[in-house]
Structure formats: structure tokens, C-alpha cells
């Protein structure tokens, strides 16, 4: 089976995010870069499919030179080879351009199933997977918490509000992975050492023939209003405090 897992290198979830003074992006100094957590489920699922059915796992990532470290992590987990799409012209690619580049790279290799994380924890956009599936002309099952691949059919559980769908798609298809799908393995030390020698193809935009015009423009980054250090809600009685809290959660935090 030929399995592809797309991965993205993102800042660690605990990293301090500071918006640049000119609003053009975030400060990158001192950031610890890691594999997007949702992509890890994809790599793990890919490895499990390989262990069950035989075949090969290729990991693909788009980004600057530092992305190589994350590709090596995936290779250390057990992936067989990597594709690194690296080009300054793609530095601030939007979802469409990213997906186009991935599609161009992936078209060059045979595949039965493609994994993407359901979203990346930096932009929280969750588009690349679907656009990639569209460009490749294959079906998609998104936000998958359980997967069964049998021959040419993939069956997956996909949670929605108040229910779970059991969806079937014919291969080749694209699956975006959600927390709970599996427990990503820890790379063993022999795995880490072997990963250093596994092949990684480096490609640039020109060789892939990717159109660089973005569909979504980022106008500017904005810091959120400084979060109050945490307020102890005052009130005459528990009922009053509860009412204040509910209001704050709805209007200020916007979480209910």
C-alpha cells in the first residue's frame, strides 16, 4: 500500500505568540518548532496501515529549511521517505497555494490513501486537506476518529454535533485526522538514527510548476485585547455571581 502523510511544522502550543510591531506576522525568535499534533495522528495511522498491509509511507511537508527536522521525526517514527517542498517564494503561501504545491508533488508518486491533520494549530484554518483532495480529484473524509481500510474501501467514524457518522469512501481518498484516532508512537532511538539516512527529496516551486498567486490575503495580524489577569467575580450572592459569569462567558469570552 502506498500511503502519504502530509505534515506541517508549527510552533509548540505553549510557545509565546507575539505579534510583530508592524502587524505583518508573529515574532519567530525563541520559538520551539514541532510537528502539528493533528498531523501526528496521520503519520501514526499511516504507519499502522503499512504494518498491516505492507507498502511504503511517504511524508510530505512544505516550509523552510527547519522543516527538515520535523520530516526526520516522522521518518524516525517509521516513515520510509520524505518530500520537502522548500522555496522562499512559497514562504507565505496560503492554503490554496500550499495545497497546489502538495498536489503537484504527490501527483508524481503513486498513492492509495493520503492523511492530513484536520487543521494546523498555527493558522487553525483546516483547508489544505480538502483543497488537496479536490485538486487531486479524490474523495475526502474529514475529522476522523476511527479508520478501517480494507482493500479499496475506507470506512471512518466522523463525529458531528450530537452524533457520529460512519462514512465510506473508495480509495484513493484523503482522510483528515482528529484527536482520538490513535496514540502516536514515540520514536525509538534506532529509529531516530536510521531516519538520518532515509531519503528526502527537496523540491522547489518551479520544478513542481506551482502557480504562486494566493487566493486569500492576510491584511494584518492583531493582538487580542490584553486578557485581564483573571478576575474573581464579585456579587451579592451565588445567583448574582453565576449570572455575571454566564454573561462574561457569552459576551466577553464568547465561548458559550
Amino acid at each position, binding site marked *: 500500500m502506498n500511503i502519504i502523510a502530509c505534515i506541517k511544522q508549527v510552533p509548540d502550543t505553549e510557545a509565546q505568540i507575539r505579534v510583530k510591531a508592524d502587524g505583518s506576522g508573529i515574532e519567530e525568535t525563541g520559538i520551539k518548532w514541532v510537528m502539528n499534533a493533528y498531523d501526528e495522528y496521520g503519520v501514526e495511522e499511516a504507519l499502522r496501515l503499512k504494518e498491516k498491509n505492507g507498502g511504503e509511507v511517504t511524508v510530505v511537508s512544505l516550509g523552510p529549511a527547519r522543516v527538515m527536522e520535523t520530516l526526520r521525526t516522522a521518518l524516525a517514527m517509521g516513515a520510509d521517505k520524505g518530500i520537502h517542498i522548500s522555496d522562499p517564494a512559497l514562504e507565505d503561501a496560503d492554503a490554496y497555494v500550499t495545497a497546489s504545491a502538495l498536489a503537484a508533488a504527490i501527483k508524481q508518486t503513486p498513492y492509495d490513501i493520503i492523511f492530513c491533520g484536520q487543521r494546523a494549530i498555527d493558522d487553525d484554518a483546516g*483547508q489544505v486537506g480538502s483543497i488537496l483532495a*479536490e485538486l487531486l480529484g479524490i474523495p475526502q473524509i474529514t475529522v476522523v476518529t476511527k479508520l478501517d481500510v480494507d482493500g479499496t474501501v475506507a470506512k471512518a467514524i466522523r463525529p458531528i454535533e450530537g452524533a457520529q457518522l460512519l462514512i465510506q469512501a*473508495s480509495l484513493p481518498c484523503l482522510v483528515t485526522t482528529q484527536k482520538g484516532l490513535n496514540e502516536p508512537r514515540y520514536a525509538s532511538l534506532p529509529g531516530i538514527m536510521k531516519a538520518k539516512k532515509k531519503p528526502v527529496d527537496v523540491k522547489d516551486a518551479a520544478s513542481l510548476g506551482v502557480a504562486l498567486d494566493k487566493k486569500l490575503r492576510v491584511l494584518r495580524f492583531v493582538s487580542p485585547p490584553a486578557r485581564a489577569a483573571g478576575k474573581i467575580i464579585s456579587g451579592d450572592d*451565588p445567583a448574582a455571581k*453565576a449570572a455575571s459569569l454566564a454573561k462574561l462567558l457569552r459576551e466577553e469570552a464568547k465561548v458559550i
Partner: protein
Amino acid sequence: MAKDVWIIAEQRDGVLRKISFELASTARKLADELGEEVCAVLLGNGVTAGAKDLAKYGVDKIFVADDAIFAPYTTDAHSEAVAKLVKEKEPAIILLGASSQGKDLSSRLAGKLATGLATDCTDVKIAAGKMVAVRPVYAGKCFVEVQSATNPQLASLRPNVFPVVEKAGAGEVIATEIAIDPAQLKTKVLEVQKDASGRVDLTEALVIVSGGRGMGGPGGYAALEELAGILNATVGASRAAVDSGWRPQTDQVGQTGKVVSPNLYIACGISGAIQHLAGMSSSKYIVAINKDSEAPIFSKADYGIVEDLFKVIPELTKECKILMG
């Protein structure tokens, strides 16, 4: 020339979901600024009857494609149908809900229509005749203002953020035939398993109501379950509660339990020792309810109430019920 603001309405079992009204109200606001119309696309099976409800919220035209092929939702059928309509009528802006279905559909459409999509937006406005969307990134640690370079400009709106405003629209229901070849559909919904509890697993929950040592026993959790029901939340527990046998180990949040990252974590009777924090510190918002004002959790909470939790929770449940409608 692209014009008009469209919404892709969402329904479940023939009933329009609340997000559809939020979309309608927002679309109306944008359309008013542009001096254009609001059109809705409603795909489903047996949805024609309820379609005109959208008129209450400012929708001028409702394109209804009523066919068994559209229920249950599949990416292929809906994206194909919408794409066809879009190519025919060329809207300028399309709003969808950032719900499970909406996220799936909007991103596929972005690919199909080769256009820009802003997902999970918390605000949209018009600037120089085009839509500017504001959306959170880095788990809400900052925001970006984005704009599509092409038409239609797509945006999915975060549910429960945009107000529902009643404003009469023309409300013309237009039955629309969209030919979809079933052979082209490569995904199939085999089964819809309704959650008995309706509860999402802790690790995926967007809202968690959690109880610790302060719960005093298993009985107290009934109050938390009730609140969780209103908020569509999952109930969690600290290690102390699990150790005492009040809750199962699968409910444990913490360093040696589950690590969760909900939008809202309500900690009831939990002191907030670091082993518990390690399991939920990346929650976007933390609420602490504890009668001990010295409890370390208050230093991490965004909102805290120093009070007997059993007095607060029922009141909070009441308030939330009113708010959630």
C-alpha cells in the same frame, strides 16, 4: 460581475439549525452595506416547508434543492451542487457556518471554486466593497484580518458568536433542480449513530465541566451533568475524585489522565495542583469555582468565583439555559 451575499443554510432532519439564522443576519448586514441581496442555498430532503423561515432574518431569495441525494450530507453532493449554482449565478460573498458540516463543505468549495476562504471567523465587515474577515489563529492568542483575492469570497462563521437579528427579507423560495450524478459520489454515509449521551470524548470536547475533591462524593456530579447538558459539554474529573471512586478513570483530566484543550474549562472544587493543570492549562478559558480563595487554580483562571460550588452551579445552569435559548 459578482454580486450578492449568499449563505449556505444548514438543516438537520428538515429543521433549520440556529447557525443558519446567524448566517442570515450577518449576510443581511453585509448586503445592506453593499446595497445588494441576500440569497440562501438550502440543500436537503423535505426541507422546502421550513425554508421560508429564513425570510425573518433578512434573506431575499432561498434556492431550495429538495432531493434525497442531499440527505444525509455528503461532501461530494453538496459541494458539487453549490459549485454549480455559484458558477451559474456568481455571488460575491458566500457565508457558511463553521460547524462540522460547514467546515467540510467550505474547504472543499475553496478548492472547487479556486478561491479564498476565511475559516471560523469571529467578525466580518465590508471595506472598499470587499469583505474583510477577522479570525483567531494560534488558538486565539492573536487574530488575523484576511481578504479573499478572488470571487466568490468565502467565509465560515464561528457558531454562537454572530447575533441573530430579525429583519424581514423578501423571502422568495425558489425550487431549484440541480442534477447530481449519483455515480460521481465517492463517499457514502453508512450510518448515523446518535450519541446516547450526546457527549463528546474529553479530548475532543470544546467545553468541559470538571469536578474535583470539592465535589465531596459521586452524587454531586449530577449537578455538573445538568450544566454540561445545557452547554453541550463533557464532564471531567480530577485525580482525587477518580481515586475516591466517584468517577471512572476515563474521566480523569491531568498529567497522568487525559490532556484536554477545550475552549472552556469549568473547574469545580478543584484546587489546581500542577499535575491537574498540566492536563488542562491549554484551555482557552478557565473558570474556577472553589470555596477556598487560596486555591492555586485561581491564579490560572480567567474567571473565578469563591463560593460553595453547589450554590453556584445550579444558578449557572439556569443562566446558561436562558442564554443558550
